[in-house]
């Protein structure tokens, strides 16, 4: 019965295609824990995917989801080096493309989210940061993601569009590392995803800037060729795309994928 349910969800996922939500079945069946999948996901998805994973396990008894969160580009390298992953959710289309180009995806990658950047400052904003131009002020200690990882690539687009040459003191290897420097009070400001500011709770403050809405990154998700349990992997992807998954992601501050 469980197999049939998973197959049904997988079929729904295949039919749903780009951006469309499919309600996942919430019925559960009793059975031994035999479906284990590993999901590689962008660091910015940490909090929401943990929630979605727990909900997915509850909805599909006997299924266990483990996560590997990190910079999307690191995860893509690990996948291309043969890491035993079942699902990959990346923070940019170009990162996903490195996996697709290497032929390690199972089926087309589905864009499912967008995220935009926000300025983050320590509580109380001690350095009085007001906008993007503060990143060009060498007296202010600002931190950005390395341009090799998606959040850094997006930050570069933002600064290029605003014609500002940032002078950061540090380049973090993933968005959480950058946020941590601000949360510790060691940096005056950083550019991170809006969702990370929300997830950090009261330790930091977010400052909107007008240029943010025009530059967004799209998150694609797909099952992987290396998966030994393609049905469960497909079911998980479908669950992320479902109304249940979408609710969690929207609560975390993500936007819907744009067409």
């Amino acid at each position, binding site marked *: 019965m469980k197999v049939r349910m998973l197959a049904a969800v997988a079929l729904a996922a295949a039919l749903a295609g780009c951006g469309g939500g499919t309600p996942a079945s919430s019925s559960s069946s009793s059975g031994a824990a035999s479906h284990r999948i590993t999901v590689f996901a962008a660091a910015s998805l940490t909090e929401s995917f943990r929630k979605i994973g727990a909900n997915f396990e509850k909805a599909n008894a006997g299924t266990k989801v483990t996560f590997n969160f990190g910079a999307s*580009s690191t995860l893509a*390298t690990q996948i291309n*080096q043969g890491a035993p992953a079942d699902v990959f959710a990346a923070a940019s289309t170009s990162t996903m493309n490195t996996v697709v180009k290497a032929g390690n995806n199972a089926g087309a990658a589905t864009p499912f989210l967008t995220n935009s950047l926000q300025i983050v400052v320590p509580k109380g904003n001690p350095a009085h940061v007001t906008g993007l131009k503060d990143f060009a002020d060498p007296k202010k200690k600002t931190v950005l993601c*390395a341009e090799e*990882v998606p959040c850094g690539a997006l930050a570069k687009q933002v600064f290029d569009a605003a014609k500002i040459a940032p002078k950061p003191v*540090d380049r973090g*290897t993933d968005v959480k590392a950058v946020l941590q*420097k601000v949360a*510790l009070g060691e940096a005056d400001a950083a550019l991170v995803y809006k969702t990370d500011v929300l997830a950090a709770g009261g330790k930091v403050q977010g400052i909107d800037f007008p240029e943010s809405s025009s530059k967004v990154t799209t998150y694609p998700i797909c099952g992987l060729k290396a998966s030994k349990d393609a049905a469960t992997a497909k079911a998980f992807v479908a669950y992320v795309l479902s109304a249940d998954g979408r609710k969690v992601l929207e609560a975390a501050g993500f936007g819907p994928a744009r067409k």
Partner: protein
Amino acid sequence: MLLPAAIAVAFLVFPLVGLLVRAPWTQAPRLLANSEVLQALQLSVVTATASTVICLVVGVPLAWLLARPGWPGRSVVRALVTVPLVLPPVVGGVALFTVLGRTGLLGRPLFQLTGFSLPFSSAAVVVAQSFVALPFLVLSVEGALRAADRRFEDAAATLGASPWRVFLRVTLPLVAPGIAAGTVLSWARALGEFGATITFAGNFPGTTRTMPLQVYLELETNPDAALLLSVVLLGVSLLVLGLLREQWVSRL
């Protein structure tokens, strides 16, 4: 006995062989001429050397103190000195923040008085590297001091040499090989430092991005370059091992 031992050797050696086999040798000139790589290599060598000098200046006296018997708390101090050896480097980096960061115990008053803060500077790299490398120097030198024959020092003292003169002219030459071994070890450890550096000092090209950080970052976009840089670091490590040959291999 032989089989598990062979497995152990294979386990340690195969990854290194893998590096050498997979490294894109033909691209080496182009990748190594990359200015970011040269910057990282230069920064690594300079900061590792500076860390080693610091370790020598404060580590040799500490080792000398630890080798003298009969003062209270000696075993506690020795235990504390070895903590960075077993501490995960990232934890070391966070610990450095709590003292030397802008909001740290010493860092906060310093920042308020002078506007200076240590993180994100090359000096922070040196601090992070010294933190992890110091135990290697102290333990090597202490071991040498313990093994040295104390009678030479006693003889010099009875012949009228001052304690400082005894230390400079008798003790130091006696333990010179131990100091050399400790110097090379701590330099190598500083050169390979990753976790404490990226946590405490950061990852900015030219200022704080050392070779291990460059390797990590190259993995994101250019695994070939990461392989090649790894070979460079492996080469340096082998060179260090060669320098230590008399210290270690001759004991076998």
